[in-house]
């Protein structure tokens, strides 16, 4: 078996319309799934940390179930299981030029629900990382709990969670291939369809891998840019404390 370079270059630089549509579906599904995950994650984290046992245990159960079972199973379960149990059916949806097939909706929902559990744990860790003294000072100034969360704790927690959330989106991009199991024509399924006609497996999957690498790389660059922007406000403070540290170290070595 030989590697057909010309076919490879052809697919890489002049992919067919079906593949580009698959690329779009991959991006769409990942972004929507991430958005749902973020929307679920914060309230879920707060519920998990709530003093009310009902809330806390419900959130814990959700997180346990979502992180403890295969995503693939969750996708199938949500698309077919809910319909079979007559709980929820996904209908194709159309509004003007936009349309969203039922299985795409189910895929997005499944990815989002799963992501929500991971987001919840990340948000919880971020909130936990904020010094208790910050909350105490805010309380002492007479701020009510919601204000403390919004103005004091969350802004500081967001700095902590940015990187793990960004990394999680990287995983999301790759996990989105799993919705192919319910027939969503994202990049993997399109590749597989072309493959079944041409049997150029190695070439096609190389192209697929490169496209994913491109997606995740672009995202990593974007993430680094966002991080730099968020750090900009702190640079001054950080360099000042670094200076203080250096001075302390110098003083110590002098004393020694």
């Amino acid at each position, binding site marked *: 078996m030989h590697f057909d370079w010309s076919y490879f270059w052809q697919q890489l630089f002049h992919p067919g319309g079906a593949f580009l549509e698959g690329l779009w579906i991959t991006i769409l599904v990942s972004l929507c799934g991430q958005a749902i995950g973020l929307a679920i994650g914060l309230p879920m984290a707060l519920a998990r940390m709530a003093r009310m046992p009902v809330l806390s245990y419900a959130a814990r159960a959700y997180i346990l179930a979502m992180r403890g079972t295969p995503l693939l199973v969750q996708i199938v379960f949500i698309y077919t299981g809910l319909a079979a149990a007559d709980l929820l059916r996904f209908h194709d949806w159309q509004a003007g030029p936009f349309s969203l097939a039922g299985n795409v909706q189910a895929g997005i929902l499944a990815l989002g629900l799963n992501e929500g559990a991971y987001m919840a744990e990340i948000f919880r860790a971020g909130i936990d990382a904020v010094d208790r003294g*910050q909350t105490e000072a805010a309380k002492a*100034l007479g701020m*009510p*709990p919601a204000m403390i969360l919004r103005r004091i704790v969350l802004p500081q927690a967001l700095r902590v969670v940015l990187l793990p959330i960004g990394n999680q989106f990287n995983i999301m991009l790759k996990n989105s291939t799993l919705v192919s199991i319910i027939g969503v024509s994202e990049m993997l399924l399109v590749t597989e369809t072309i493959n079944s006609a041409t049997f150029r497996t190695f070439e096609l999957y190389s192209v697929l891998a490169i496209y994913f690498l491109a997606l995740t790389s672009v995202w990593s660059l974007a993430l680094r840019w966002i991080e730099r922007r968020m750090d900009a406000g702190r640079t001054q403070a950080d360099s000042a*404390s670094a200076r203080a540290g250096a001075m302390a170290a110098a003083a110590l070595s002098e004393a020694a």
Partner: protein
Amino acid sequence: MSGAGVEVVGAEVVIAAEGVEKWFGSRKILNGIDLMVRRGEVVVLIGSSGSGKTTFLRCIDHLETFQAGRIEVNGHPVGYHDRRGRMVEDREANIARRRRDIGMVFQRFNLFAHMNVLENIVIAPVRVRGEPRGEAERRARDLLARVGLPDKADAFPAALSGGQQQRVAIARALAMRPAVMLFDEPTSALDPEMVGEVLAVMRDLARDGMTMVVVTHEMGFARQVAHRVVVLDGGRIVEAGPPERVFGAPEHPRTQALLGAVLH
């Protein structure tokens, strides 16, 4: 007379604590504390490590719950309300309302790390009291001048020395126009050369008639500024009186031991 020279006998009562008892689990930390603080009075709390000074101070602000007794500030219980003779814990929003009138200064400053100095001072008056922003900023700059940091409005906390951070923290608490200021060892996390600048600000505050309860090991400050020194031991008040009496002729053996340990 001692203290900053403010006449407090007969002034109205700001803090009234009565029989305050507190357990952490099965350990009793406060053993029935009675303390009355009048407007303009400076009370310094001293006591050995673990005697319950921090815990009592936090009870006043309801940062800690307590199980028996009552504490009123300006005639209102803080964090509790009476329900048929029993004290029931308040809803968070009501607790928050009571805390507005109590300023608290922490050992570790606890400035909001993501805000500059001006924002640290302004946020509570604007968001909690609903003061117009311009007015709050103007007052914040006045307060910064008062604590000797007129040019630090735009600095972030991490860029300030410990002494500067603590002075900002004092300004932040004052911005709420509290009826009383509580200080929990405000200088003990500071390098020695910064202790003086913070104590000077506190001395000025006392001179201006601020009601203050101060936990500190700075006996010089207590001698000069306090109207009354209160000695805590094992969660109870073992001795209280004007500084010249408590320091000059301590009656309780614990006070003698404590002062011996601190003075030498």
